């Protein structure tokens, strides 16, 4: 792709990215709206929303819940999923195909089905809905993502490295913790980030299982009725900007580290 082609892809992708950003920019702009009750119409610029984020009573609690759920669910999914991924790649066992199907199925199960099914189950088992049930639900749909992600990483891990570890007098535990695990870590982190994002953003499954607890998306959903308070925009914008900042900082430190290493 030279000449015209090269130029085209820059323009096309630029447009695609702009397109992706439109509602985000909209959300950010309206986080500065001097909205009194409904944040639908532009009424003027203010910093108040940013300065008193937790003014709209529920926003902060919902946000806190969302973070808590995402953290715990991510943890559960990452641990269980990583274990399964390692087992799938490294061991032979009976019912391997069944297990693979079991892992794949949640991915093909639409969220409504998953949410409704779980909700019915909790109801039958008499499990009170709340943060706990949401966490279970989130861990459930994240687990499959984790397995697929980590499995790819385990699979691309050169077994010769572990062999080298054993050859160099590393006991099985030492080989796992000093070689296997650090090498899987990027995959595990990626899986965890993905889980976190999916959990943080989930609405459908949450809505079936949250009981009276409010998460950030479900807050937005109910608040939609009377116009979402600008504080919700503030939180969403802040999370977005933080993510960007995080990437920039880590990129720059990585670049700096590379430069340092290059000098050695």
């Amino acid at each position, binding site marked *: 792709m030279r000449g015209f082609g090269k130029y085209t892809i820059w323009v096309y992708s630029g447009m695609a990215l702009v397109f992706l950003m439109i509602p985000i920019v909209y959300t950010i702009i309206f986080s500065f709206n001097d909205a*009194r009750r*409904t944040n639908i*119409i532009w009424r003027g610029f203010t910093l108040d929303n940013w300065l008193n984020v937790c003014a*709209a009573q*529920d926003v902060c609690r919902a946000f806190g819940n969302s973070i808590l759920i995402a953290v715990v669910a991510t943890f559960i999914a990452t641990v269980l999923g990583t274990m399964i991924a390692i087992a799938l790649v490294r061991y032979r066992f009976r019912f391997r195909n069944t297990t693979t199907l079991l892992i794949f199925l949640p991915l093909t199960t639409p969220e409504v089905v998953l949410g409704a099914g779980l909700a019915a189950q909790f109801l039958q088992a008499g499990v*009170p809905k709340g943060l706990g049930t949401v966490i279970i639900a989130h861990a459930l749909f994240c687990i499959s993502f984790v397995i697929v992600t980590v499995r790819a990483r385990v699979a691309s891990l050169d077994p010769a490295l572990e062999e080298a570890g054993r050859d160099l007098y590393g006991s099985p535990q030492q080989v796992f913790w000093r070689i296997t695990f650090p090498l899987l870590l990027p995959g595990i982190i990626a899986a965890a980030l993905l889980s976190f994002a999916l959990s943080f953003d989930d609405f459908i499954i949450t809505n079936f299982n949250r*009981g009276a*607890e409010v998460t950030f998306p479900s807050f937005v959903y109910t608040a939609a*009725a*009377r116009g979402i308070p600008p504080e919700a925009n503030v939180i969403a914008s802040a999370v977005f900007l933080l993510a960007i900042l995080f990437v920039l900082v880590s990129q720059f430190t990585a670049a700096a580290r590379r430069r340092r290493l290059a000098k050695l």
Partner: protein
Amino acid sequence: AGGGSELQPAEDRSESDPTLNWANWPFYIDEDDNGNYPTLEAFQEQTGISVTYNITVDDNNSYYATVRDQLALGQDIGADTVCLTDWMVSRWIQLGYTQELNYDNIPNAANLSEDLRNPEFDPGRRFSIPWQGGFAGIAWNTEQVGELRSVDDLWAPELRGRVGVLSEMRDTMGLILMNNGVDISGDFSADDFNAALDIFREQVTGGQIRNVRGNAYTEDLVNEDTLAAIAWSGDITLLNFEAGYEKWKFVIPEAGGTLWADNFLIPIGSPRKTNAETLINYYYEPEVAAEVAAWVNYITPVEGAREAMEAIDPELAENELIFPSDETLANTRIFRGLTGQEENEYQAAFQSVLLGA
């Protein structure tokens, strides 16, 4: 789920837990420019009970759906009191999802308007007590649309695709039924209902009706996706207040509007019943009731509020939306109670229109 007689009310821990969660509809309490609720603040100061006011009810059905499972298990649904419409309250009471009110804690209940004391679904008000009442009627954007008088006017070609109706079946269907000359408080038949439903379906599939929503219909009015709508009485006043001028107008259609009330109830799993009763008692003080009514423009169930209102704003004391005259009331009907069978059928039929099925 079923009779629910086995459900036990949660133990009341109000004594040790001076907090309260209140779930309610949007545009349903007095609110100042900073988003605070003055009467509620006063209550908190007075009693030391700190109240979390959650605007989580957009529609009776959708709210019920989110809490149903917990109710069935007798669990705390995160609200110690919630204001729901008569028919939904009736369901809760039948299923045993509510706690019986202790009127010792609500001396002001004496102020409850006489005609609201013995509804069919809760004789003697053992389990529920009204918060506000209101009408469903029609509203329109006065800048873009001429005067509307009847439901038929909503079907005018120039409003095609710009009409909103409520997902509250009793209000939307109620207005259409009345427009068909049916008395919704009387023993209308399934045929009557189906005839009205056909009209409704026709307007939906024909694209006259743009959308069917809960309280969020106000949003469509604000961003002008809809120019006319079936609406609840007080909401329009508040929209106008926010807009800063009389942008919308609300009327009860000539063929009649619905009359309803939303009632406090205390969910079975709430461990703060006494606090809830304290709150109810507070809002049954005429002055407080008047202050709320002055803001929300819904019908207050509290006797003496009118007098109190005179003190605040005499003009409002004459407001038909807050203190409807008999004449106005005569033009409104309460949707009659439906049997389980009817509820099933009518809801399904109504939903099938919403689902385009």
